């Protein structure tokens, strides 16, 4: 018999005892969750938590974000910015230099990505206020490595898409019916405390995470 059959057979031979009922996870979150927060409170909470993780949050509008990004890129001395087709028009119109589209499979230019790209811009699918977390679903246009390899990651987040907690986000967006090949939660830049429990940023992934938070004019502050 195969290992598979042996394992399953041993598991099936075990005494079953009383079968627990299915856990009521929605009920748990309905009773204890953070569901009452309004938009302003969610935005506030997200910003506070993301800042706690050493992420930067910059409030922008639909109209001015390319220009804001241009300023940030210049201030940080970024010479090359990786982007996807989705934002090509706005970025090219902004007059930024060093723009680099992720327009072909990685296999041909891995070394360049690892060594030559300073920053990237990706979209996000939303965020989680409770923990200051971005929901990033890479796809063909904005592949997985964009949010991982470049030392600086700029992420565009629509304030309408901030959820209270992970459970609310995954149920509201119906994740279980449509998981992509890779889905990510990102809470700040890469870090480690493996040396003498001392926190250091930029362990393997980005050293900086800058969230461009799309808000209404009156929320700009």
């Amino acid at each position, binding site marked *: 018999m195969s290992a598979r059959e042996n394992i399953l057979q041993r598991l099936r031979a075990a005494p079953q005892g009383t079968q627990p009922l299915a856990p009521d996870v929605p009920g748990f979150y309905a009773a204890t969750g953070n569901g009452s927060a309004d938009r302003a409170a969610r935005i506030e909470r997200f910003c506070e938590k993301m800042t706690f993780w050493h992420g930067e949050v910059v409030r922008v509008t639909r109209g001015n974000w390319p220009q804001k990004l241009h300023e940030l890129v210049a201030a940080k001395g970024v010479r090359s910015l990786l982007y996807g087709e989705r934002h090509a028009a706005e970025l090219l119109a902004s007059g930024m230099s060093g723009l680099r589209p992720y327009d072909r499979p990685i296999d041909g230019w891995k070394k360049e990505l690892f060594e030559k790209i300073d920053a990237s811009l990706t979209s996000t699918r939303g965020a989680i206020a409770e923990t200051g977390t971005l929901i990033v679903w890479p796809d063909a246009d904005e592949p997985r490595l964009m949010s991982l390899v470049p030392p600086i990651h700029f992420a565009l987040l629509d304030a309408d898409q901030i959820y209270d907690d992970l459970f609310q986000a995954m149920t509201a967006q119906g994740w279980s019916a449509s998981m992509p090949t890779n889905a990510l939660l990102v809470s700040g830049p890469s870090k480690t405390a493996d040396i003498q429990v001392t926190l250091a940023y930029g*362990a393997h992934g980005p050293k900086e995470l800058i969230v461009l938070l799309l808000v209404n004019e009156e929320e700009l502050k």
Partner: protein
Amino acid sequence: MNAQHLQFVPASEFRQRAAAAVADEHLRRSFRGAMDFLIGKRAAQFPDASALERQRALAEHIRKYSLARLPELLEQLERKLTENGVQVHWAESPEQANAIIIDIARRHGTKLMVKGKSMVSEEIELNHAMADAGMEALESDMGEYIVQLDGEKPSHIIMPAIHKTKEEIARLFAAKVPGASYTDSVDELIGIGRAVLREKFRTAEIGLSGVNFAVAETGTLCLVENEGNGRMCTTVPDVHVAITGIEKVVEKLEHVPPLFGLLTRSATGQAITTYFNMISGPRKPGEKDGPREVHLVLVDNGRTQAYADEQLRSTLQCIRCGACMNHCPVYTRIGGHAYGTTYPGPIGEIISPHMLGLAATHVLPTASSLCGACGEVCPVRIPIPDLLIRLRAEAQHDARPGHAPLLGQGAAKSRLADAVWSGWAALYTRPALYRAFGWLATRFRALTPPMQSGWTVSRTPLKPASRTLHDEMAARNKR
């Protein structure tokens, strides 16, 4: 302590290592400091005790529910993963698991495998097997990288290099990393590791990772990490091999948030880790990166033995947060290496006997004062002290009627211990005899031996009082 091929923990060796660890002031201080830090961070995450109890109750329920349906869920997981394009393999033993992985690696002409943190890969001694097969397996978690560079094994499942100071790491890097000069700045040390490992991620043919949760309904492998090395290993090389114990499966995606939230808070006192990486398949046509092949190796290695017993099954509820070791007064004193097993501390004491057998591990369940700290902090409420007592009993007795023997059942049987405890029971079940014994012991207390085995190593001998409480109470009743 160098890695051994076969993990075997003779009682004498455990005692020697524990005694050496206890005598090592430096080790004692560093573990105490680190554990205090983690205990404090965890406590800050759970300010409301009753809210924590509700979360623990739910997490325990989810784990028990998942285990109750384990065979069905494993089949569902396999089906969904296969639909998603992931290749699923099953291994009963470390040898089978290693053979599967080496076969995959060979097919892809592997010279270098980069590894994200995976305790199961430590459990099966994959690095040795890879080396024997002529391939390099490089640890990429900073802590694991450091201990591997020094030829050691992790001393903690979450913080592998917690036994090392930054100065030791600085000397290690200066000696072993080409081109690195001595620095004891943590940022610069991490920078050195980053530079070395980025090159490795880029050139490795194959990446290996563990799995924190495997979701059956979607066929999703979830990985929890802060550093990003796990993402590197699962994204950059052309082939990703994930390896996990069969117990890690949950039915639904919605079962993940309660477990994930407790895992990170219990482990390091973080509300969430930097990355939560959900992998449901290899690179699809049109996608520009990600591995072209994804494999999952499901490992038994003794888990079905624990599963076969309703009490011992709760061992498999574990989500590997390490809180039990952080809070264990024994682990804090002796550190992770003294145990000699992949999983140290209380969880190691209850899981290792299933993986390695009681003959090799029967001393481990005795290395606990049964203080209960582990059970108190366990986010999935594994009754660790009860399981320690159970394993102590199984190690010293034949299997009970109707129970299959555990691997190494009865390995610590001792006629002397049987005689002592039977004599003890004979005395303590016969009240008149017991009172006579008390009378004699108190009247002849001058004869109490001055050396009382382990007790008098650091203590003065115990001596009976001049009268027993029985005598005193009888005298009072006469008055």
